[in-house]
């Protein structure tokens, strides 16, 4: 994995390989994003199920909450 580094004091700009720490953080970040996506999908599914149970549309639900 490449990182574009810009040293703001020397104004040196160069591409370098990610450190082991940065690679490990990347793995954590990716896992968090996957989980966030799963959570978002689950939330959307739950919303749709609730709307069905209530027998109203998403627009009607939005009207109720406005």
């Amino acid at each position, binding site marked *: 994995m*490449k990182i*574009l*580094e810009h040293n*703001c*004091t020397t104004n040196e700009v160069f591409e370098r390989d*990610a450190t082991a720490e940065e690679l490990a953080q*990347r793995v954590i970040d990716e896992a968090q994003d996957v989980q966030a996506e799963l959570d978002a999908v689950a939330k959307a599914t739950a919303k749709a199920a609730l709307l069905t149970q209530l027998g109203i549309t998403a627009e009607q639900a939005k009207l109720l909450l406005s």
Partner: protein
Amino acid sequence: MSKARDIASAIPAPSTVSSAELGFLDGVTSAIQTQIDTKQASSTAVTLTGTQTLTNKTLTNPVIASVINNTLTSTTGDIIYASAANTPARLGIGSTGNVLTVASGIPSWAAPAGGGSLTSIASGAFTNTAELDLTTISGSYKHLQFIARNIETNGDRALRARFNNLSTSIYNAITITNINGTAATAAYTAEDKFVLTAATGQNPLYGPLIINIFDYADTTSHKNVTVEFSHLNNSGQICQMWLSGTIRTNDAINRLTLSLSASTFVAAGTYTLYGVN
């Protein structure tokens, strides 16, 4: 015998008037007071004509005491002021662009106070890398402002920001997003980063990203951050994101890292980091 001189010569002088006194009348052709009045208009006013020199004279009305000598203003642009009570002094002209100000109770010329400025600390272009890492940021400014233009990512990836390479739970924020008219808010108190776009459906295209870090060099308090980001997503929808956050560190900020959850930036956008005074 038409003149007083002739009288004085011809007859013995009266006992009460000497011949010398009669001689004083020589040349008198009209009333003596009238002749005197033509020489001096009144008994109190003095009319001076031509070049006159007055020595040890007192002007009683108006009173003028210790008149300022024009030699005090020796140079073009000089200004006269009082350096103390009843003490005229010379203030030489300042430099071009100077303004008159006050220091220690007396006037002086000085450069105008600064009205704030932006200084470009670093600027460049994104490349096909996974992160942009701005390091060794000088602490010489009051605030920082990061502006990126035309950020684009390869694929639908989340964009996030970290400071000082800190990935502990020190990022607090509230965000408001508007994706094609659908608004959403989110708040967190202990994230390990600022999340600028979600991983799905918001991958940024073309947008200007503005990050402000206030009092970033302060070492006694947490750092406040605001983010504004307007962009298109991968479906061509117009999106806006606003974030107000806190980095819970007392350390001065000297590093800003923009990263993606996966993939890389497109080598299209540009960035500038400004120091704000």
